[in-house]
């Protein structure tokens, strides 16, 4: 009996060690681009012969970065919520743990899940000083993009996208799923130019509350993300 117990304990320890040994910590980055070049705030990007776009502010949440192998979860990022702010840097880095760096798909949410939204005021990257919590309605803004463009006939040619809302029918967080091989440090490209390819800002340029337009704009957001191949 004693021997059997010792043997079981040994097996358990060995198994635990084996499982632990398989897990690797690696880095995943999100790099902001405008088309082929890293995004610069306050820079005029020409979009046609006469029109240009300038980004003044870009901030958004990414949640639940998950790594899958043939549909099964094999890893996830250390932090649940990530706030990417173009003012800090065009490159945002975070760590993840994954078994043997062996995955074929990465999924994440652009925005916050409804459970986090419902919890309301919280700390860390969710602190209201992040300026991502609405002041005159419920919940967090998932994606905030502001700037100017000659395409907009608004006051001072400004466009303002505060995309948020978590209650149906105006839920706006969107899931992204990308094919990727686990190897070297992983870079996810976030191409802001894709946003303007999909949204005609001469028509839709001001979205600041949960509504139909916010949902339409949120559906474009997954197209901004791709695995960056060097």
């Amino acid at each position, binding site marked *: 009996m004693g021997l059997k117990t010792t043997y079981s304990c040994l097996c358990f320890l060995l198994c635990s060690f084996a499982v632990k040994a398989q897990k690797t910590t690696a880095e995943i980055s999100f790099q902001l681009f405008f088309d082929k070049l890293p995004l610069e705030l306050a820079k005029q990007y020409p979009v046609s012969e006469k029109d240009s776009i300038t980004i003044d502010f870009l901030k958004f949440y990414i949640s639940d970065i998950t790594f899958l192998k043939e549909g099964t979860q094999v890893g996830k990022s250390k932090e649940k919520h990530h706030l990417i702010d173009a003012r800090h840097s065009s490159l945002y880095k975070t760590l993840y743990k994954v078994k043997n760096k062996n995955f074929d798909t990465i999924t994440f949410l652009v925005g916050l899940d409804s459970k986090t939204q419902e919890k309301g*005021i919280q*700390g860390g990257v969710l*602190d*209201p000083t992040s*300026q991502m919590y*609405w*002041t005159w*309605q419920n919940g967090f803004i998932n994606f905030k993009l502001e700037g100017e463009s000659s395409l907009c006939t608004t006051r001072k040619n400004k466009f303002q996208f505060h995309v948020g809302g978590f209650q149906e029918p105006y839920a706006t967080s969107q899931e992204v799923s990308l094919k990727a091989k686990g190897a070297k440090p992983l870079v996810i490209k976030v191409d802001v130019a894709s946003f303007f390819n999909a949204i005609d800002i001469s028509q839709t340029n001001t979205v600041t509350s949960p509504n139909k337009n916010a949902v339409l704009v949120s559906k474009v957001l997954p197209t901004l993300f791709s695995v960056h191949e060097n």
Partner: protein
Amino acid sequence: MKINNIIIGLSIVLTATYCGVKKSGLETPEYFPVPHYNFDNNPISKAKISLGNNLFYDPLLSANNTISCALRHSPYAGFAHTDHDLSHGIYDSVGTRNAPPLFNIAWQDRFMWDGAIDNLDAQALAPISHATEMGSSINEVVAKLKAHKKYPELFQEIYKDSLITGERVLKVLAQFQLSLISSNSKYDQVKKGAANYTPKEISGYNIYKSNCASCHAEPLFSIYGFANNGLALDSTLKDIGRQKITLNPKDSLHFKIPSLRNLNYTFPYMHDGRFKTLREVLKHYTKKIQNSTTLSTELKNGISLTKKQQTDLIAFLNTLNDRDFVVSQKHQINRSFFINTEGN
């Protein structure tokens, strides 16, 4: 054996009562329902309530250090704003609604007249940042608190580190508001067996039960839902109420149902403060209800009350005034804190 059973029973009741108090940390009468507020996210403590009290009375929360929460939610007005139909804000600006009273907040799940905010902790962001209220931002408030003579020490005492964050500021403000419990009116005394109604009040109580209780239910005297109570649309404000938030036409002209407690202190009445007296309110319900597709079903046929019935009803409504609550020192400004902090 019997005694044993009684002791066990008593222990269970005492433990349950203790747990109830412990869970919320607030003292409430046993006939109050279970609070809606999730205290697990913000456990109540005396020190936090006291810090929240200081912030509530501190004009530092406004852009030019002139407007405090208490200026528009005065204790003597049941933490509402009297004298003005539409509440005033920074730089003598005028808002579009009448500041509602603040009491028995833990039992409410949606805030503002249109229910725009469903989270008490987040509510203060709205007045802090609104251009016609305090005209500031939570970032500005946090920066001022960090540079203040006294606040960093208070945060340090509570949180055991000197970090002042937006979350902490909002949660202590919420704690002070949660501590504003009004439960010592004559109605409450009668409930506790410590007082009796007069015949006039009993008559008014019965009139209330047949005509008002479906929306203004005991013991909080509101179900804290939303309804169209037949007010004509003010053409200068064009306030459609809850529809602006839900974008659902069914919510047109729906506003939050206020409590009937403390009406003596919280005038003027309605979301835009259009009625100064209870007589005017009753005139509306008996004679002036505007029919519309979104009118509350309870009011479709109007309310019919004789003058005497109205007088009796008002006599009963007066039993809901809680003088102890409005004069209670524990909700008042902590003057000693504000001495020698000017200039911050």
